[in-house]
């Protein structure tokens, strides 16, 4: 019996796959139906997993198991309920209290973490002695790295006109940015093709059985 439902599942999967692919031709009812199923299931999944994996273990279980120890959790629970008030337009402003807490925490953490990881550590990682290695490719590479990083930052300098030597530096910066965009694009082609390989593997393997999945 399981085989039957497995086969049924695969046929459903194949149907849905084609329904989505039909978008490549143009938007059509099959695509719309598949899309709405996708939205509905995805929302349902998030809903269930948030309850089972977050609200129950991190809120309800501690409260019901040992209330005197954990009563303080009522506070975030209250803020959470305030968050839900956004659904009711007349009192949606109360959700701002919860939002303020979320935004404040994120802003505080972002301030220090981005400063350290994306500014100071990157700065430190670029402070190199390019001639230390003695390997020609590495010397050239590290020189490129230092020059590219500096000129790139110069390109993003907004309070000075891009002219003269400064403009020329910014020009070099944009060349580096272009190389990195080209490289990123070229690298990314693989990502999307992989997804297509995954799909064809399903269609040709699981569904049609032409190849071994």
């Amino acid at each position, binding site marked *: 019996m399981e085989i039957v439902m497995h086969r049924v599942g695969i046929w459903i999967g194949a149907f849905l796959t084609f329904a989505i692919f039909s*978008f490549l031709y*143009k*938007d059509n009812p099959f*695509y*719309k139906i598949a*899309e*709405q199923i*996708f*939205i509905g299931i995805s929302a349902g999944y998030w809903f269930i997993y948030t309850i089972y994996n977050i609200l129950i273990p991190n809120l309800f279980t501690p409260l019901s198991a040992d209330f005197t120890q954990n009563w303080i959790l009522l506070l975030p629970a209250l803020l959470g309920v305030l968050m839900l008030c956004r659904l009711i337009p007349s009192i949606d402003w109360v959700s701002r209290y919860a939002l303020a807490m979320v*935004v404040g925490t994120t802003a505080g953490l972002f*301030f*220090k973490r981005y*400063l*350290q990881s994306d*500014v*100071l*550590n990157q*700065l*430190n990682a*670029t*402070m*190199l*002695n*390019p*001639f*230390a290695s003695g390997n020609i490719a590495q010397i050239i590479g590290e020189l490129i790295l*230092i020059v590219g*990083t*500096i000129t790139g*930052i*110069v390109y*993003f*300098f*907004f*309070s*000075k*006109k*891009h002219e003269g030597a400064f403009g020329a530096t910014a020009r070099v910066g944009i060349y580096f*940015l*272009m190389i990195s*965009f*080209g490289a*990123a*694009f070229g690298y*990314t082609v693989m990502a999307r093709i992989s997804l297509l390989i995954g799909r064809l593997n399903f269609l040709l393997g699981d569904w049609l059985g032409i190849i071994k999945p």
Partner: protein
Amino acid sequence: MRVSVFFTLFILLLSLSLFAQEVTFLAQDNPNDDGEAIKLEWVAPVTIFELVLARSEDNITFTKIARVTPLLRTYIDDENIEDGKEYSYRLAVINDEQEVEQYYFSAATASAQWFNTDKISLLIMAIFLASAIVYFILHARRGGRLYIRKISGLDTMEEAVGRATEMGKPIVFVPGIMDLDDMQTIAGLNILGHLATKVAQYDSTIHVPVCRSMVLSTAKEIVKESYLRAGRPDAFNPDSVYYLTDDQFGYVAGVDGIILREKPAANFYLGAFYAESLILAETGFESGAIQIAGTAMPTQIPFFVAACDYTLIGEELFAASAYLSNEPNQLGSLKGQDVGKAIIIVVLLAGVVLEMCGVHFLKDFLNLH
């Protein structure tokens, strides 16, 4: 020959093991914490089979806390440690037959620190940046003039609106798929205000499909104000700004439909984008529109750069928004960040020169570990 090699090796090994016989063991307060951990460090020859760590509060009865190997070298004890209390530790060297060969002792008191000394360079940099940004915001608010260079894409945008008017076709503006809490959406909406004014002046039409309800109300207000500013409040069509759906791909399908139906002369994608960027740009190209994009999403910039006629790259989006809105908070912040960039370039150059001279002071100072 072979015998002599073995003999030399034997002597070597013997002297090594003699040398490495020394075991040192030290317990000390775990630095830069809230006084709830003690750091144990040891140096022991790798030939030792196993080490056992034990802790005591009265220096008489020891309870085992962990089995470790010589290679591990450090262990942080954070089980029920109290601030200000002294703990004794014992390191037992165990041989292959599971017998204790020797004990080493050390004691330490846990304490909480008021300042994390590892983070000095982070603090200095944070204070520098925060004061620069706040200073320039205040400066701009007091009416001080701050120069922001004109972003070259802005001219292209205005031309595109003009071209749309000539062709009698609408323009489509997509403010990204994120909510108002994303700065990119705000920046996109600021630029929308400017474009909508031009649209009102030229008596052209604009479509603004959005995918968040909060963005909808804000975008509507912004477009309405623009028409008011252009002196044509009667020409504002409230239906030109509309909500499609919250879902990423549902939204893309909706926008694609609009682009294919309306055949706009120009498409603007300004805000936060994910995987949909390329679908939008490709569909827009098929319909023959001029396309101008701007996003700070690092993964999506390459697609927009490749597929659109003009792209505001990363921070340029925010700069364009500040330039157009002329709002002191944005201008001041941008200027403050520019000071940060200048500092970084100077420090970086200094660091590279010092490194080349073999002086590692600056690099070590900025190293946060």
